[in-house]
């Protein structure tokens, strides 16, 4: 059954490659996509508390490629299906280019494959496929492309994946299998000093791909966002980066006894602080969103590395919530930029008046990402900081404060007087509004029913997670306090500050990013060696 999840998108892709210019065919593809979402929900139901494995080609033991679905991966597949469904509906009238539709669904197949496969080499191949597809999706439009950043992004990704390939070569040398689970079992018997180098190689590759090497791994990528179609940006931020976070989780599981939690905790903190600071410095709406991907992924890594069950749960839920509000933000900003004809955050004003629904979606998503009470971000942030030492709690509050400052700037586009007349004030397309609105509503639903959703999705943890009412109220008060502080900081320090703008234009070339990757590798080796 699991193989169909990989094959169905490929079939849709081939179908659309032939008939993409036909509207009926696109409706059919969207229906198929809805079926995909329904099937993955069914899979989620089936895998509650147990796992399904399929050996491709019926080979004995771990000789063949094994697909494995368990609760966490099924959750991610539902997420993947929903975001792709939203993007497909969003692009319905936007593009009749068959390149776009073909590559969109092939990309989905590769990402679903990444969530399912248990084979180390398969991961390499699928990651390479998804990287190349993303590059082509970003570059095929001749008018809007940033070729240099694309080249740098592609080459850095190739180098990162070569580090990973080198690492799995070592794993094969030590264990003789490519299966993650079996390799994990066998690695327990291998000497600690022998595992250090492959661990460092694999983790450097994965950390680069989930852009948590501070600044260096995200800057080459962030330049691609402003010119990227909003739909592609939503996929990049919403799903593609999450596959690598998921890989991070699995590789940490595979190596087991490395006490590198503190290292990645520090890396996560640095990455999210850097992302927040860079986001405050931006004036381009899409760049603000792009840098927030970096900070939120840092927050997820903090949750996953805090070595604490609640934080882990929070990290996992934050993956979902980030995908929801970030795709909602990207999809709605696509409509707004189309209507206003500019990306300057100080020039767009009065969205709520011009496009009430889109404005409400943006508002909901902004409340979600800043962690306002009753919205989806508050639940995951509550869990991340629920049971951690005081200093880490304070760090999370500082990160939230930074998020609030930059989103006060961003939310400025909603209010004020509509200067108008610059863009052609087109009436927004209903096909674009519906998916954004659905995601926006989910930002609220996921917040109100957050506790139940967490208990439903991640039942593997034996103690059901509960939200302490007083703790939640305390967090809400902290949110209100930091909103006030954030507004004051924005008003008196950030607004129109030229020094910050200059920092925001920071650029990092190919060579320094390579050097950072080498340095990160060295750091992991040193840290793991000393511990």
């Amino acid at each position, binding site marked *: 059954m699991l193989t169909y999840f990989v094959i169905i998108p490929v079939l849709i892709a081939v179908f659309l490659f032939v008939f993409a210019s036909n509207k009926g065919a696109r409706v059919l593809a969207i229906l198929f996509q809805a079926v995909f979402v329904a099937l993955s929900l069914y899979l989620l139901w089936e895998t509650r508390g147990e796992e399904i494995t399929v050996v491709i080609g019926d080979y004995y033991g771990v000789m063949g490629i094994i697909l494995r679905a368990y609760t966490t991966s099924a959750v991610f597949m539902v997420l993947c299906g929903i975001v792709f469904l939203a993007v497909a509906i969003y692009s319905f009238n936007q593009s009749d280019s068959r390149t776009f539709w073909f590559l969109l669904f092939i990309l989905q197949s590769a990402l679903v494959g990444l969530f399912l496969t248990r084979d180390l080499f398969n991961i390499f191949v699928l990651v390479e496929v998804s990287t190349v597809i993303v590059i082509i999706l970003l570059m095929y439009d001749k008018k809007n492309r940033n070729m240099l950043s694309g080249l740098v992004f592609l080459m850095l990704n*190739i180098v990162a994946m070569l580090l990973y390939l080198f690492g799995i070569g070592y794993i094969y040398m030590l264990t003789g299998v490519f299966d993650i689970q079996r390799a994990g079992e066998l690695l327990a018997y291998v000497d600690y000093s022998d595992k250090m180098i492959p661990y460092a190689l694999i983790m450097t590759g994965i950390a680069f791909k989930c852009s948590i090497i501070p600044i260096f791994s995200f800057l080459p990528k962030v330049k691609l966002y402003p010119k990227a179609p909003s739909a592609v940006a939503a996929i990049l931020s919403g799903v593609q980066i999450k596959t690598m976070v998921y890989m991070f989780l699995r590789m940490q599981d595979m190596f087991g006894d490395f006490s590198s939690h503190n290292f990645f905790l520090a890396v996560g903190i640095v990455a999210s602080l850097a992302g927040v600071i860079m986001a405050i410095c931006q004036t381009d709406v899409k760049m603000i969103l792009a840098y927030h991907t970096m900070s939120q992924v840092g927050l997820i890594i903090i949750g996953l590395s805090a070595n604490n069950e609640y934080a882990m749960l929070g990290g996992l839920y934050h993956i979902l919530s980030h995908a929801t509000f970030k795709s909602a933000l990207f999809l709605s900003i696509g409509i707004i930029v189309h209507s206003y004809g500019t990306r300057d955050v100080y020039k767009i004003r009065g969205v709520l008046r011009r496009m009430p629904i889109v404005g409400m979606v943006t508002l909901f998503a902004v409340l979600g990402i800043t962690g306002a009470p009753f919205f989806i971000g508050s639940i995951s942030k509550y869990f991340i900081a629920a049971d951690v030492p005081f200093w880490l709690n304070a760090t999370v509050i500082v990160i939230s404060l930074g998020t609030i400052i930059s989103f006060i700037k961003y939310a400025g586009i909603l209010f004020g007087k509509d200067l108008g007349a610059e863009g052609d004030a087109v009436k927004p397309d209903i096909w674009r509004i519906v998916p954004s609105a659905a995601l926006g509503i989910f930002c609220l639903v996921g917040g109100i029913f957050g506790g139940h959703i967490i208990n439903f999705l991640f039942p593997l943890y034996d103690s059901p997670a509960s939200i302490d009412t007083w703790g939640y109220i305390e967090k809400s008060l902290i949110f209100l306090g930091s909103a006030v502080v954030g507004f004051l900081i924005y008003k008196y320090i950030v607004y129109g500050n030229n020094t910050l703008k200059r920092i925001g234009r920071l650029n990092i070339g190919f060579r320094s990013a390579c050097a950072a990757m080498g340095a990160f590798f060295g750091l992991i080796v040193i840290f793991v060696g000393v511990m």
Partner: protein
Amino acid sequence: MFNLENLDIFAVFMFFLALFGLITARNAIKSIVFTLVMQTAVIMFWLFLSARTGTIPPIIYDQAILYDITAIADPTPQALMLTAIIIGISVSAIKITMLNYLFRKYSTADWYLLHEMQAEEEAENPYN
């Protein structure tokens, strides 16, 4: 006979040499070549995993002979490396195509100059 035992050290050395090259080379063509060198190093490493001095190819010539399993070269890494080589070639083709576009536009392949020109373009028209 040429000893294959220690060649994996050579592969590791070549890998980090290529990383050094990527950090220092200013020309984008050289960077592409260095990624290829890096890839070759990884492939070499994988092949040395499976084939050592004295191993024989994994081909059964005669059903009657019982082969010593430890003496047969492991075919799995070799098969996987074929995939890796194909991926490497196609990705390099994309990289060279993109660089070709950039070279026609800016008539340079120097990373520093390319970044500078892009920064100039952005400063002129930040929200186009």
